[in-house]
């Protein structure tokens, strides 16, 4: 399928996948391209035209053009054709790269993020929790805690890699749950243990994601150890009303009292080390979230949507009722005015949801790397290479590349020792790549994909990628989004000035 598309404003463009650029195309260039596609000869047509006396020619549906103009655009069409500008949307890139054990070893060496799931227990019962009843796999916050010795074994194992030349200088230790503060003992023990590792020359920083309920009890400890604290809060009382105690009571008052305690007692710490995370759902909006945090705390939260993977089919309707689309809200809904007002880096990113604004600039305006080619994936899908973002240890000793992946995809295990076979990890990933590759090879957005293969049911007989688009879909989306930019030059300008692209 040819790489030409038209917008609603009737402007024509050519998409170059090799450089990920979009070129405006004069209608006559498309005219000649269509002519050849129909099997007619533009050369013959031009010769016939030459026989005619008139200096201008009316081309149906296009307009009146001077002969000289027609010849010029035919020459341009031929030049573009000769230089292979008319090609398939899906360039010939094949994702040949596969990982080796050596690659995995390097990734572990360079990894600067270690996350411990210290407990599965939680003191809230948020309606949209991925461990809750809306999802197929849920454990109702079983009070299972991490084995502290296993956590230390993992740190001892990583110590050997932290002495290597390529290892990072600073390591971030993160604590995750359930609600991690429900196992403060494990947190303290792990933090204390990292302090014994200072002989490695590394510095350690600490990070915790918390619902904020227990902050009043452990705040002094967290401050003393310079923790970065991310607090989950969805907005005001009503906006936060999905985040409830198991009794059904709202958590808002308790959490905000704790937040205010931090702000009042540790104002500098509050400014530098406290951040907020909000989930978009049916009781809030992006406008509300941003406004609430700006007015109340002078902070800018990280906004995500509800996770659409692994939803319990019996609860799908309930899920759909709760869920709100960041994409829809921001670009077509009530939150649209934010695009006009706010700086782009204050707005939630919507990777992979469509190719508008953030994505259009990822697609089109990345700086060219060497050889003029845009930066692109080298392995199928947009999955992070294992351990490139971090190492995650679950309560039951499983080693995973991040906390968002189903634990059935564990890559290693901590028992009496750390079992992490680099060759086997590479082999496993390569098997996943080979399986997804059959889809990626025919996907028009493969080079720019941001989809994680673990959300595609890669172990199912027929893996499904919701981001898959064929060439027609791709060009249709691109047409819509370029058309959007045509209609909203202010947004286009904002991107150019705020992203530096």
């Amino acid at each position, binding site marked *: 399928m040819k790489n030409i598309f038209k*917008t609603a*404003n*009737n*402007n024509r*463009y050519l998409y170059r996948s090799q*450089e990920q*650029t*979009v*070129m*405006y195309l*004069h*209608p006559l260039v498309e005219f000649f391209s269509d002519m050849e596609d129909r099997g007619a000869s533009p050369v013959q047509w031009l010769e016939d035209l030459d026989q005619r006396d008139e200096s201008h020619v009316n081309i149906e549906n296009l*307009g009146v053009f001077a002969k000289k103009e027609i010849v*010029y655009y035919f020459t*341009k069409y031929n*030049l573009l054709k000769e*230089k292979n*500008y008319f090609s398939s949307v899906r360039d010939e890139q094949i994702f040949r790269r596969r990982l080796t054990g*050596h690659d995995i*070893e*390097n990734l572990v*060496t*360079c990894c600067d993020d270690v996350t411990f799931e210290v407990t599965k227990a939680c003191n809230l019962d948020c309606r949209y929790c991925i461990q809750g009843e809306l999802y197929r796999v849920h454990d109702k916050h079983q009070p299972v805690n991490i084995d502290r010795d296993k956590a230390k074994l993992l740190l001892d194992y990583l110590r050997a890699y932290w002495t*290597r*030349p*390529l290892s*990072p*200088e600073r390591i971030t230790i993160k604590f995750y749950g359930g609600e991690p503060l429900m196992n403060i003992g494990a947190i303290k023990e792990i933090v204390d243990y990292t302090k014994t590792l200072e002989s490695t020359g590394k510095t350690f920083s600490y990070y915790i994601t918390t619902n904020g309920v227990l902050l009043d009890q452990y705040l002094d400890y967290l401050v003393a150890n310079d923790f970065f604290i991310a607090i989950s809060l969805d907005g005001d009382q009503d906006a936060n009303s999905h985040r409830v105690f198991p009794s059904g009571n709202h958590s808002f008052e308790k959490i905000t009292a704790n937040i205010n305690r931090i702000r009042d007692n540790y104002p500098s710490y509050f400014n530098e080390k406290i951040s907020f995370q909000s989930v978009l759902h049916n009781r809030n909006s992006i406008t509300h979230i941003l406004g609430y945090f700006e007015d109340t705390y002078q902070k800018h939260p990280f906004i995500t949507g509800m996770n659409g993977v692994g939803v319990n089919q019996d609860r799908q309707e309930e899920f759909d009722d709760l869920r709100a689309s960041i994409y829809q809200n921001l670009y077509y809904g009530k939150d649209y005015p934010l695009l006009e007002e706010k700086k782009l880096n204050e707005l939630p990113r919507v990777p992979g949801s469509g190719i508008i604004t953030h994505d259009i600039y990822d697609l*089109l*305006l990345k*700086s*060219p*790397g*060497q*050889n*003029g*080619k845009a930066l692109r994936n080298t392995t199928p899908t947009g999955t992070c290479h294992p351990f490139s973002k971090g190492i995650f240890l679950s309560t039951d000793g499983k080693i995973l590349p991040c906390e968002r992946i189903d634990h059935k995809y564990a890559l290693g295990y901590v028992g009496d020792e750390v079992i992490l076979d680099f060759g086997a990890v590479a082999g496993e990933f390569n098997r996943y790549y080979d399986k997804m590759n059959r889809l990626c090879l025919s996907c028009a957005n493969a080079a720019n994909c941001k989809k994680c293969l673990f959300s595609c049911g890669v172990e199912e007989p027929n893996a499904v990628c919701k981001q898959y688009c064929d060439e027609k879909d791709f060009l249709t989306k691109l047409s819509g989004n*370029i058309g959007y*930019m*045509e*209609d909203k*030059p202010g947004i*286009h*300008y904002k991107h*150019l*000035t705020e992203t530096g692209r």
Partner: protein
Amino acid sequence: MSAKAYWFYLESYVYVAIKGHDVLLYNAMTGKFLSYTRKPQIVEFLRALHRKENLYALEVTPGFLKENRLESFMEDISGYFMGDLIDVSLAPGKPFFMSPHFDIREEDNPMEKRVLKNVGKDSLFAVTHLTLFVNSRCRNNCPACHTACKQFPWCTRGNGNNKNNGADSLLEIGEIKEILDQTKGCPIKTIDIIGGDLTLYPYLERLVELLCSGSYHVNYHFHFSHLKDRIPDVIPAGGPNTRATLLVDCSTITSPGDLNRLKRLEPDRVIFLIQKDPEISIVESVIDHISTPDITVQPYFNGRNLDFFKANVFTDVQSLAESIPDLGAVNSRKSYNTMNYGKIFIKSNKEIISGLNGAPLGKINEVSIEEAVVSELSQHGNWLKTRHDVAPCGDCLLNSICPPLSDFENATGINNSCNIWKERTA
């Protein structure tokens, strides 16, 4: 005067360099370029195009073009397919245009010496190529011994102390192993091994064994005069990633016996060093008789053959146009030396250098490779040295289109190894 209006834009494959009232436009699709000297109206117009509020397209009328003496500029742009004037009636909703590549050099803000910020954490990942001068011992006394190695990788006795007191130097196997350990994880695909006389390196077999266990492509460089009838057996035994490269000074091929020996050796690659025109014919005749598929002809500047270089090596406008560097290469060449970036050389006297003419970054038993790389990147050394940094190239608008600064230029100080400067300033 007609009120017809047009959108003027430049294609995204166009590179625009502006300095003062001079401008160069390069079409990366076709390799063609346009240049204008002392044309303030063109420069002003392009600067307006560059301003983001215009979204890379300007609405113009024939009257405007005439008033501003831009008509013939428009014809040039269209003629070279670098841009276009689109009748607004064909595109009433202003189309979406991607930016051409602007390189605007402000007079009062000359390009600062670039150093990389935040050098450290990932610096070692920059290393892509390793060259080890494993020994300096050699029984020859070639005229080019101490100078060829400054212009391109070539064997030399000059890395030891033997220029002064006859003492040779070499890299011990343990030292090489340490180098490999320190660079484990770097994206090194190729390692070049050069001497002295490699056949006199006492650990050659152990070296081959050590290197063939990695995933590198390894090239062992032997001077033609060092080999009688065969490449040392240990080389082909090193496996498919191990190659023998023969260094041949054409001035030493004087008899049929030399040619026969060359044929017998059957190296994987041959580099012919040439200094004058007749040697080009020698190479051409030799190539017909040997089966080696990979042949490089390497011009060598001996201090007396500048005319030879001007005639055969210097760039001119036509060869620049034929090379058609793409925009990625053009952008890269502004920022770093795309030929030398990532290359580390370790001499037999243990010194670590980042280019054949580079100052030592330390010795391998005193600094780590990582420390050497950090030092290189922090100090705007060979890796970051571009034509923007040297005269007269720094003033030339073509300096990002031209090939990067070569070691020949670094060694000889003849930076503008081109015939273009003369053409443009004549």
